[in-house]
């Protein structure tokens, strides 16, 4: 299993603040995916980054894939309570198993 470390593990911020969460590994990946899981629901795919250095934007969310394709970041601008959830990065499935990073639990306080 190729470990994907996410930081911070927990993050609690006020509505309107900006934040960045990180996904790091010592391995190189062909792509990385970001999911958000809201309480009581399944993980939902947000974005897939494929090219080293790539930046993708999804409204107030900005995803970046590291140049070396070993890490990725997610920046949220002007966080809202609806952004609350568990953010998970993941490589594409390799073989029979699919695994997530360690996760960042975000709470946005109104």
């Amino acid at each position, binding site marked *: 299993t190729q470990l994907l470390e996410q930081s911070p593990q927990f993050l609690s911020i006020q509505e309107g603040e900006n934040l960045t969460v990180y996904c790091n590994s010592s391995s190189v990946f*062909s*792509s990385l*995916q970001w*999911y958000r*899981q809201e309480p*009581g*629901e*399944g*993980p*939902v*795919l947000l974005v*897939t980054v494929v090219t080293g250095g790539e930046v993708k934007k999804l409204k107030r969310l900005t995803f970046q894939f590291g140049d070396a394709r070993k890490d990725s970041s997610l920046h949220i601008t002007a966080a809202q309570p609806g952004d609350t959830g568990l953010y*998970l990065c*993941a490589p*594409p*499935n*390799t*073989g*029979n*198993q*699919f*695994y*997530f990073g*360690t*996760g960042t639990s975000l709470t946005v306080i109104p």
Partner: protein
Amino acid sequence: EPEVTQTPSHQVTQMGQEVILRCVPISNHLYFYWYRQILGQKVEFLVSFYNNEISEKSEIFDDQFSVERPDGSNFTLKIRSTKLEDSAMYFCASTRAHSGNTIYFGEGSWLTVV
């Protein structure tokens, strides 16, 4: 957008009873998975399934668990004799190919064993 659907969304069962959780994967997907998430904990891999047989299973997936694809559409997880510690959210997932593809998750079936 195609999606993975799961039923039931919530089931309460008595300890020792059998439970079947159902999933309809995305129609052109070939690889299917079950995961579980105990409240407040990480999503844990249970089993993967391809070509009508188990490809890989974790140590959680003991003899009390079984999976099958009875009709080419549904993908089921059976827990033969439920225990209190089986209480969790169970997620079905599917992907189109063996590697390098996005995996799509259902919304989960919340199992409560009392």
